[in-house]
């Protein structure tokens, strides 16, 4: 991804809007008694479109804003989302995305990892109460939500940052001209 000031501004708006939408909408709706967590999926998509650096930096920034708005200890969410963004970016740099299933699957897998990561950060500071096995069920359902929402987020983001995508520019340049009347 070629980061121009215009693209950077778009990414910042996407990050802020994503966090606000998560807190005011997704966290307050329930399907099968679980609220979707779209932020790991958003960071995964940014990592897949922009590479390791975009993924890690956006993970840090989104986590930082989330912690600020929830008045939590700063850095916890950032730490997890940096790892998620970096992993998605690494995937993008090492492998080609051949199938349409790759993005949703990656979103689901990394959301699962992120939720476990949030738990690990919390465990680092001590969990005094019992942890139910149902946590695992909730995390699995959240991963399923990420699978379905991931593709939509990816398509939307791709459209938003299209001018900055290197492969997209190459495709546009190499497209065959249309011959009128042929």
């Amino acid at each position, binding site marked *: 991804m070629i980061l121009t000031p215009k693209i950077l501004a778009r990414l910042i708006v996407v990050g802020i809007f994503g966090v606000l939408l998560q*807190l*005011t909408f997704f966290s307050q709706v329930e399907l099968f008694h679980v609220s979707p967590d*779209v932020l790991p999926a958003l960071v995964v998509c940014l990592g897949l479109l922009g590479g390791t650096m975009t993924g890690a930096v956006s993970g840090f920034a989104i986590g930082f804003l989330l912690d600020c708005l929830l008045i*939590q200890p*700063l850095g916890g969410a950032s730490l997890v989302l940096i790892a998620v963004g970096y992993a998605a970016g690494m995937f993008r740099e090492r492998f080609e995305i051949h199938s349409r299933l790759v993005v949703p699957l990656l979103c689901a897998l990394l959301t699962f990892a992120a*939720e476990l990561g949030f738990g690990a950060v919390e465990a680092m500071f001590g969990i005094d109460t019992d942890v139910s096995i149902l946590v695992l069920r909730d995390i699995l359902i959240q991963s399923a939500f990420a699978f379905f929402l991931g593709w939509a987020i990816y398509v939307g983001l791709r459209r938003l940052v299209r001018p900055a995508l290197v492969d997209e520019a190459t495709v546009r340049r190499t497209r065959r001209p249309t011959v009128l009347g042929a």
Partner: protein
Amino acid sequence: MYRKQVRRRRAVLALLIVGSFALLTLTYGQGSNGLQRGVTAVFTPVSTVLDRALKPARDLINWVDETFDARGKNDKLEEELEVARKQAVGGKVALAENREYRELLGLSKSGAIPEGYEPVTGRVIGLSPTVWYSDVMIDVGSGDGVKQGDPVINGQGLIGRVTAVTGGASKVTLISDHSSVVSVKVVPAGVLGIVKPTVGEPNTLVLSFLNSDKNIHKGQMVVTAGWSSEELESRFPPNIPVGEITKASVIVQEAQEKVNVRPYADLRNLGTVQVLTGGSR
């Protein structure tokens, strides 16, 4: 050139990780810092507007979820209604008695709000997204008289307490959060205990007894006891409804000195809440 790029990338990653750990170390255990107060001051109005704008969409999705949930609950509810009717008759008698006692003792007739507390009404404007934390953000803060440690209730019962405050917003840690401990008593049995949550089951709290000479039964009410100890950071005012006993087998009670409690408040669907400001803490 490529190696230089890789080195730069790794340096940025290391910087971000070290930065995150440094922030965690510096801010852990603090209520709120200047940066968070600034950020929440900027984004609280936006969150409030978004929250109101998205309410119809949220309600629609929650309605779908509740419709699925409601199927099969009908029979159970009819049974509960039968029991509730009987209790209502008893309740009316108790209310009349209560009114007389209050007048005799010269107490306030306010009822739900404990003496000396001033309720401040707020709206939930944000919820933590992960299954590990149970925090909500509300749109009232120190500017409205809210202080750290204030109890928070809604029409159904106790919700939690304020754990961080900024000028126009506060963080409420729910009773389903793993850090929550509430001193309670079971009425009418009079058994004292503490209620703790189970991570992953927001509709199940665990009541551990402190005095277990009496057996308690399913359906009995659990209210706040109003006392504190070293383990309990904040004291809740007495007699706020917390929940009802859902599982109370005699064998489990005697062996583990624990029973399950279902909170009255629907902790995943909170809208308007009341912070009880003032009072003794």
